[in-house]
């Protein structure tokens, strides 16, 4: 994979009536992306197919959010998360991602299906504050497990304060 794009302050906004659809295999390699995905990410279909989904990962995102995400879908459950993505040209776009596992006719897990919608601006505002705090905790604690743990602790503390589960929190925004 080529070098990661340099992030800029330019924001792209997803259309009100659109959604990004993508599919990956069990390792997170892209197997399908719809035209909205191709347009907003700036990558061609050819570039996307077979590429790891994390080429879209923005450096402002805490790593622990992706850990939570992977842990959840690998347990065959649905996850929803606000995610800041990085386009090929360095611009960013916020999405409300919904990821569900895909099964074959015998019930075996064969991949993941993701639909990403335009998030509410107030939700983005609330989440960016939380993510910044999580990212700070992650950096202070250093790389690896310690950072991940510190970052998740910030999230759990915030949830505890609100008396909500993670799902209640994201759907309540």
């Amino acid at each position: 994979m080529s070098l990661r794009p340099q992030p800029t302050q330019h924001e792209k906004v997803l259309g009100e009536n659109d959604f990004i659809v993508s599919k990956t295999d069990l390792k997170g390699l892209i197997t399908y992306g719809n035209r909205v995905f191709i347009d907003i990410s700036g990558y061609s279909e050819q570039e996307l197919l077979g590429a790891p989904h994390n080429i879209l990962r923005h450096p402002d995102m805490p790593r622990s959010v992706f850990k939570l995400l992977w842990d959840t879908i690998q347990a065959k459950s649905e996850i929803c998360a606000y995610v800041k993505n990085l386009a090929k040209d360095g611009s960013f776009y916020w999405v409300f991602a919904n990821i569900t596992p895909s099964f074959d006719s015998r019930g075996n897990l064969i991949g993941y299906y993701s639909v990403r919608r335009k998030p509410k601006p107030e939700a983005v505002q609330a989440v960016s504050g939380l993510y910044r705090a999580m990212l700070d905790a992650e950096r202070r604690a250093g790389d690896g497990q310690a950072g991940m743990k510190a970052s998740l602790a910030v999230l759990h503390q915030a949830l505890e304060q609100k008396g909500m589960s993670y799902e209640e929190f994201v759907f309540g925004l």
Partner: protein
Amino acid sequence: MKNLSLGSRVHYLVALTLGLFLVFGYLVATGSGRVSTFGWALFAVTALLLGLTLYTVHRVLLAIKNLTKNLKAAADGNLDQRMTGIKKGAATGELAWALNDLLDQQEAYFREVFSAFDHASQGKTFRLAMDQGLHGAFKDAMTRVNVSVESLGQVQHMAIKERLIARITDLNSGNLIENLKSIQEYLMSMTQELGVVGQISKETAQEAEGSRTTIENLVANLNQVAEMIAQTNAQTTLLHEKGDEINQIVQVITDVADRTNLLALNAAIEAAHAGEIGKGFAVVAEEVRTLSENTKDAAASIAATIESFGEATSRMIKDSEQVKEIAEGSRNAVRDFRSQVLKFADSAKTSMVQVDKAQDFSFASLVKVDHFLFKQNGYRVLHQGPDSPEARAIRTDHRECRLGAWYYQGQGAEQYSHVPSFHRLETPHAGVHASIQEAVNLLGTSWDKDEALQNRIFSHFESAERASEEVVHILDQMLDERHREL
């Protein structure tokens, strides 16, 4: 031809055209003998174009084959397939993307519906199906799906709430009946005890009446004795008067004797002077005779007096015998009175023990009812909420309640601490209070949405009921153990 597939038909038609074209070319070549260079070039270009068309048709057919495969899979319910590697500007590109878009809409729709219902079935009704990005009929259908999800959520919320209420009501009513039965038994034994007390009181009253009669008889007897004594006094006075009379008579007899003595002396002197004068002596002799008659009269008086004295004496003896009899009667009356008083005292003691037992039974009933009410208050919080008076009522701990005060400082500690069951009461009693309090604390949380919390609440109520049963049982044992000593 009828049985050939579309692809084969196109191939067949193109091959036929090519064949005809070649035949035509051959006819031209052989018919005029010569073909111009331009003619050959035209032929070559036509053949090339034809080949290209054949290739394009082949590719289109291949794409159509793929599209058909995906459509068939979609028709079979497999929405996972997509067209990928779509060449820009390809004739079938737009068609492939359109198919992908349709499948995206369908797959997103079904996954959303599934997720929303799946969450709702677990009570997570906040997870509504998202219609953003869906188009037309898919979007409209989603609005209706969400109405269903919301009402499903409400129904489930109610169902979960009702389930705990039903379970606890069931537990409660079952135990309520047991509790009432226990009170009933107590009231029955209390009635029996009070019946015994009533009987004893009746006997005591009868005996008291008997004692009263005895005392009245005794008083009457003693009055009679007093009267007798008064009569005896009168007799004694009479006797004294008679004694005076005897003294006077004795004085008379003494005078007569004196005078007789003097006369006898005079007679003796006269007799000395005149021996022949017998006449004088005859006068003296007459005087002496008179005196002796007087003496005889006096003696008769004394005899009469002594006789009346004897009469008085015999009356006195008779009276004194009556006094003796009366005294005997009084003594018997007093002895009876004493034994009745003793019996009375015994009855009073038995009566006291019975009253004591009755009091214990009534106290035990009272504290049982106290604890039934305590539990009832706990159950009521389920309906009335954690800020209700019922919730405040259950904050009393096991040292502050009536049973607690009795057990730790009051009569219980004084009168019962030596019986074997006494020390077994503390743990279950504290358990009733603690379990109800924990259940009520959990009723302050969002239990109506959480089945795990409901199970915890239920198990607290359950252990409160078990502890309460034990308290009732131990109270019964304690009473039994103490009453056997009485």
